[in-house]
């Protein structure tokens, strides 16, 4: 009894040697990191102080030192008696520490920074001494937002994107049902349907921009079969004269957003389709058979037997579609840049446009838009996390 207690005591004792060695290494690393950053001594050592690639050697040196420092820190903590006694509670946090640290630095802190900028008027510049050049304006930016027609247009478009993008889910489902059969060459059809999801958003945007072009686009080609004829103009060149002008989809404020959403739906439908196709693979044939015995077919079979089993696929399809709708940035940037006159902006693009784009440099105002967007997304994200949490609880 006493022996084992002694043994336990020994096992949990702070190891002085480990702590000292690790502590010294850690101190040395921190000193080095500070030294290198503050004096650029290494930069001068390499004689690169003026060039862009000067950062490369110092970056690798700093990285190496930082890795050693992290290792030393872990070794340092694990040497202490309080750690040894509470290993089960502490170990997960040690493993998480690095990830949490990065998450803090690159996600959490910037969110709050951006919120704080939203209370300032700032053009994004620091002066020569690195002093921030903005000024505190309180809720001014938010007051401006309430009075900004472009903000309401963006908000309305965000909503349009969310609602119309949901079409991808049912359409994807029906294409999946249609393709879920065994015919020769079905794989080819499946991959053809999946194809739009493989190409980059930017390329999809370009293809649709060309197709919509009222001068030479595919759509205007069709149009000219019905309403246009080719004539010779004053210089003897061939030109097209239309009784009704072809629609300028991206050039008209009322149709432009719908045009972009239609382009975005093309790959999104393919994505939902592939989710449902894999879901359909897991539909239990027993239940289908049982349903058939009970006389279910057609819509009833789909609604009461197949769809409930596809619930996980539906959940993921809805989630990725909402995310897709919020990520409409690339499509807008390639197709209209928010135009004509800001009528296709969504909050994300408007924020970029006001802060970073073309040097407009209203960083405070852009941050205010970002904060509003963040609050809206927060509602959705909270619901999503809550749902996940509920599912986890059920699973346990």
């Amino acid at each position, binding site marked *: 009894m006493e022996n084992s207690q002694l043994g336990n005591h020994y096992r949990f004792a702070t190891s002085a040697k480990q702590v000292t060695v690790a502590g010294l290494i850690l101190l040395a690393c921190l000193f080095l990191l500070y030294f290198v950053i503050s004096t650029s001594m290494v930069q001068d050592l390499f004689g690169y*102080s*003026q*060039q*862009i690639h000067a*950062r490369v050697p110092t970056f690798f040196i700093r990285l190496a030192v930082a890795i050693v420092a992290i290792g030393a820190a872990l070794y340092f903590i694990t040497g202490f008696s309080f750690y040894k006694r509470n290993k089960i509670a502490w170990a997960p946090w040690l493993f998480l520490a690095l990830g949490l640290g990065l998450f803090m630095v690159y996600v959490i802190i910037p969110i709050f920074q951006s919120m704080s900028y939203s209370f300032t008027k700032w*053009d*994004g*510049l*620091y*002066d*020569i001494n*690195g002093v921030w*050049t903005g000024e505190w304006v309180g809720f001014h930016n938010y007051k*401006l937002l309430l*009075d*900004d*027609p472009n903000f309401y247009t963006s908000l309305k478009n965000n909503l349009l994107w969310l609602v119309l993008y949901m079409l991808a889910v049912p359409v994807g489902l029906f294409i999946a049902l249609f393709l879920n059969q065994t015919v020769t060459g079905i794989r080819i059809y499946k991959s053809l349907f999946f194809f739009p999801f493989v190409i980059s958003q930017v390329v999809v945007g370009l293809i649709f921009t060309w197709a*919509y*072009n*009222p*001068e030479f686009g595919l759509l205007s080609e069709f149009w000219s079969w019905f309403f246009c004829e080719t004539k010779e*103009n*004053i*210089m*003897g*060149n061939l*030109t097209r004269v239309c009784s009704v*002008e072809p629609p*300028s989809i*991206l*050039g*008209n*404020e009322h149709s432009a957003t719908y045009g972009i959403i239609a382009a975005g739906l093309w790959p999104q439908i393919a994505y939902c389709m592939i989710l449902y196709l894999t879901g359909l693979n897991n539909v239990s044939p027993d239940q289908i058979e049982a349903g058939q015995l009970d006389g279910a077919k057609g819509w009833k079979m789909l609604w009461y037997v197949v769809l409930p089993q596809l619930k996980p696929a539906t959940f993921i399809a809805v989630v990725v579609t909402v995310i897709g709708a919020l990520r409409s940035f690339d499509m807008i940037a390639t197709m*209209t*840049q928010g*135009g*004509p*006159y*800001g009528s296709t902006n969504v909050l994300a693009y408007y924020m970029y*446009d*006001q802060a*970073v784009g*073309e*040097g*407009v*440099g*209203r960083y405070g105002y852009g941050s205010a838009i970002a904060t509003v967007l963040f609050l809206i997304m927060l509602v959705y994200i909270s619901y999503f996390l809550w749902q996940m949490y509920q599912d986890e609880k059920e699973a346990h």
Partner: protein
Amino acid sequence: MLNRFNLRKIAQCVALSSLVSGTAVASELVITFDDLNPDKKLAFESAVEAFTRAHPDITVTANNGDREAHKSTIRNALQNDAPDVITWYPGNRMGPFVDAGLFMDISDLWSSDENLSSNFNAIKPTMTRDGKQWGVPYSYYQWGVYYRKDIYDKVGISEPKTWDELLSNCDALKEAGVTPFTIGTKFLWTAAGVFDYLNLRTNGYEVHNDLTAGKIKYTDERIRNTFAKWEEMLDRCSFVSTHATMSWQDAISPFANGDAAMYVMGNFSVGQYKEAGLTDDQIDFFQFPEITPGLPRAEEAPADAFFIPAKAKNVENAKKFLAFVASVGTQTAWNKAIGQLPPNAKALINEDDKFIVKGMETLSTASGLAQFYDRDAPAAMAKAGMEGFQKFMLDPSALDEILENLDKVQAEVY
């Protein structure tokens, strides 16, 4: 994206050998340029080469990148890894960087350099802010109306000198089935060119400056007059109908095909007309016609310039380079190569290029030179303003709503 044109290695060898013999001390110069168009790139590189020949003791590192990307990377460059010389736009566009103290005051160079102090008087105000000079221009170009001379001849009309002549030309062109003007407003700034000219001709240079400096409201009666002229222009001189989906390059195709006869543009577009198959005989240039009789004629003449970042490490070399860029020889060679005009009054122009000759004549006789709406106005104002112009072109009835919104933006920006 950065296209590095690097003479460092060779120069290092030279520097090393000179160190060994102990005759000269090598120093460095880092230049950032922002044009990858073949002719512009070549002109820049030849200038750098000439500079290295003239100053063999200076090791030049020349970086060249995409122009649009440069507009956002310059912020980082000025605050962190500053080169010694960097390109940027004069006028209000340099304002934020000057105000934040990121550009170096080079008034001493302007006053001490014989050539800069005597040959750049026309453009000096553009390079000046707070009574000091901040950069040295290497090139500028004229704006005006480019037109199809062959169509004009066929319809039997001639270059208009007044607003009424322009309108009646438009009537004749429409009669003949030709759309008078082409334009592509997808990227907005082309519409600002039309607005600027209407405003300069209706109200003059002072009003242009006061408007872009935020001293006049957009709902001001004078600005409304400008828009009234524009509405008249939209009505009688229609523009190609699909302009909102076209870039300025796209808009050349109806012009080249003979469906449209005129284009309000800058001289950089001439190369593109020729690429589209038009010859010097088919196209010509006239100054935007007079609207208010007797008003002194001001012109748009955007300039490109070099600046020294406040964080530059080799300031002496940078000043040597700016003085070199300003020299008569460099200005002549550079602008001949890129088909633009030298800001140096003593520099020679390419007499064989009729557009350059006409441009020189247009600008040298102008009473004032405007930079361009989106360079004279702060970027945030320019963005909103140009969106308003585009909206107006598509829907003139929304004028009141547009102008009131612009007043709101103006109150916020200045």
